[in-house]
């Protein structure tokens, strides 16, 4: 009898990993090859970016280590002047393209993650407020969102970037550039979070459990955070994933246009901008490799987001 009880208990409280492995989401993940491959690509790219100082053979952000004479070395071939060989070649400044991509991807990913986090926090807070409080608060927040939606996000980001650059003293501009990018992309991206959360909140707030919480006398703030928020998180997660891909591309776009990461600390977009100048002259590797990396990263994250949307959609289960 007692033995039986023990057995029952272990079955009832399996380990955290086992529970996750058994979940619907994990099951769907295992059954979707696209998701598995995408996840693997993202994992490899993110890990190599995070551990760039260990993986990359050179530190491209240390100007003293650069030798201009190594400039324009083709991939895998020795440089005509210095005899050094680089796996993916070098750019116009003699920087190793492979190392620069890894370090550049760090900036792209950091900016992407931070910007989405910022957009998510702002969007969720305003979405909850608009949906739960309603009335003029709702109208006010959503009209601001509507107005912002009429401007293309990249335009808003450029505007914010321009203003921020204007008010920061020039000696801090290089260090500030990354934070300004995060701010610019984050602020241009909060609207869709807010709209989705507001919509979900409108549905949730008339549910019985919310009514019960209100009857018990819980304060609105506690209801929003403790009861409604966990129930609107699924769509937020999906948007966040897809937004991440978009934020990385937005960063690349801004840097490509020359208003983002500085050329001495290039992100993927800056690298593509630099490489673009050598498109006609046969130095294809400066453009191709960073562009291919950006494509792989954005595509993989996007596919993951797509899968997540389908997996979390009860109607498609």
């Amino acid at each position, binding site marked *: 009898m007692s033995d039986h009880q023990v057995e029952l208990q272990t079955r009832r409280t399996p380990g955290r990993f086992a529970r996750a492995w058994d979940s619907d989401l994990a099951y769907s993940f295992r059954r979707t090859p696209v998701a598995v491959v995408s996840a693997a690509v993202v994992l490899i790219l993110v890990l190599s970016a995070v551990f760039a100082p260990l993986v990359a053979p050179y530190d491209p952000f*240390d*100007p*003293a280590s*650069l*030798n*201009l*004479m190594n*400039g*324009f070395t083709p991939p895998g071939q020795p440089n005509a*002047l210095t005899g050094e060989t680089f796996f993916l070649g070098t750019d*116009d*400044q*003699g920087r190793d393209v492979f190392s620069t991509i890894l370090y550049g991807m760090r900036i792209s990913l950091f900016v992407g993650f931070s910007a989405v986090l910022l957009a998510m926090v702002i969007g969720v807070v305003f979405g909850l407020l608009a949906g739960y409080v309603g009335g003029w608060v709702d109208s006010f927040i959503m009209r601001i969102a509507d107005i912002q939606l009429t401007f293309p996000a990249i335009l808003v980001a450029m505007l914010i970037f321009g203003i921020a650059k204007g008010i920061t*003293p*020039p*000696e801090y*501009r*290089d260090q500030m550039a990354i934070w300004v990018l995060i701010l610019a992309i984050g602020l241009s991206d909060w609207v869709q979070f807010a709209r989705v959360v507001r919509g979900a909140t409108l549905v949730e707030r008339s549910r019985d459990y919310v009514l019960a919480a209100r009857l018990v006398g819980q304060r609105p703030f506690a209801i929003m955070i403790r009861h409604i928020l966990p129930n609107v998180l699924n769509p937020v997660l999906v948007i966040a994933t897809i937004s991440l891909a978009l934020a990385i591309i937005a960063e690349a776009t801004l840097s490509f246009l*020359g208003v983002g990461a*500085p*050329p*001495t600390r290039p992100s993927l977009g800056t690298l593509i901008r630099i490489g*673009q*100048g*050598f*498109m*006609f*002259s046969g*130095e294809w590797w400066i453009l191709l490799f960073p562009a291919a990396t950006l494509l792989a990263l954005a595509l993989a994250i996007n596919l993951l987001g797509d899968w997540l949307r389908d997996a979390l959609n009860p109607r498609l289960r």
Partner: protein
Amino acid sequence: MTKQTLLAATAMSLLMGAAQAETLRWARAGDALTLDPHAQNEGPTLALMHQMMEPLVLRNPDGELEAALATDWSVDPDNPEVWTFSLREGVTFHDGAEFTAEDVVFSFERALSENSDMKGLISSVASVEALSDYEVEITTNGPNPLLPAALPNILMIDKDWAEANDTVDVQDVEGGEETFASQNVNGTGPYMLVSREPDVRTEMTAFEDYWGAADFPIGYSDIVYTPIQNPSTRTAALFSGEVDFIQDVPVQDLERIEADPSLKIVSSPQNRVIFYGLNVSDELVNGTPDAGNPLADGQVREAMNMALNRDAIRDVVMRGQSIPAGVIMPPFVNGWNEELNSVSTDIEAAKALMEEAGWGDGFSIQLDCPNDRYINDEAICQATVGMLAQIGVTVNLNAQPKAQHFPLVNGLESDFYMLGWGVPSYDSEYIFNFLYHTKGDLYGTWNGTRYSNPELDEMTKAIAAEVDLEARDEMIAEMWDMAKADTVYLPIHHQVLNWAMDSDVGAAVDPDDQVKVKYFTAD
């Protein structure tokens, strides 16, 4: 007139019209900063204005002085301070007003007035007087044998037009002012302004009553000028036939353009030296207050000069399209010699100098750099960041369009900046006058270094007035020795000038990079 002749005449005029209606679509990296002829002494600005306005004396594409609005000039044999210029008769401005001596007097006075950027060019001019409608007398402060060579960029405008449009005063560019003259033109030049959208597009059309209509090829009836900042977009525009003629050709694209049978390149060493200027005063603008200025120490400046690897810049960044420079003077200029131009790279010696100066641990500084003015300007600055890092100098690169860059230099808001200097007079005096003389209203107007050497200032004025050319050359040599010993500028190189164009555009490259479309032919 019979029907046939009428028809033939109509056909004829139609044909001629067709032959003449050629548009030159012209692109380069940056736009003119203004249309006010006296507000900015800057290459591309003057290049655009030269299509619409004219000086008394012009420098033609061969680099020789040519009569433009003045037909001839002479110096008084008894008094070398007095010059007489005879003006061309029958010249009209675009609005139909006649060009006379009062316009010359007015234009000179305007070019010497407050805010004018051309003062340095004619700083030797004491007064300009009209002797008759077509004769002007210019008196200089002391004799100036090189006066005519100083005039090709002093453009003439109509006095009545300026007065009627309240634009007698020169535009204050650094103060961000816009005036009627900065957006409109009434000159005597071969082309008239049709429309202008700054940084986007400027359209010009041939001026029918141009005095030289019969004397010059004037192969194009219209000009469309478009600045295209991005180098590969600029080349792509030429390849796709979107434009016919580009300046500031990206060096990496030369080979491909050359290989295309429908395009051609004309090149020549350019009369322009590219260099860095250093703030030599006691305090940095963008530094920690009271920390002192490492650049005030001549040894530090010398160390930075030695750290620049000009050969690497030539071979990699410029792909051979530059000539390393050891002095901020193009080889065309009177006063240049091999020895002055020699310079070598020595990192170890540079480090030792830094140590000796007490800056062995290095320092950090901001480098201000244009990104749409000189060939590969930003890439050169970027390469410099790496080279100076080797001697412990941490450089923060601030690259931006020239419209934001130049005010930093002129407003003394930069500690370390890139600048290029062409010498239209082909004489050293022009360099000392603008770049070495203590910054003031009349002299040293482009000296952003805060360098002030009273002895050099004295001599700058003295060589302007020295008529004994041998003694003058000796003084110039002495001045260069003094200037070089102080290393206030770090010379980089002389650009090789390339113009790329459709093969049916007939243009001879001008060593000053000054496009004058009236000399162009169209096949």
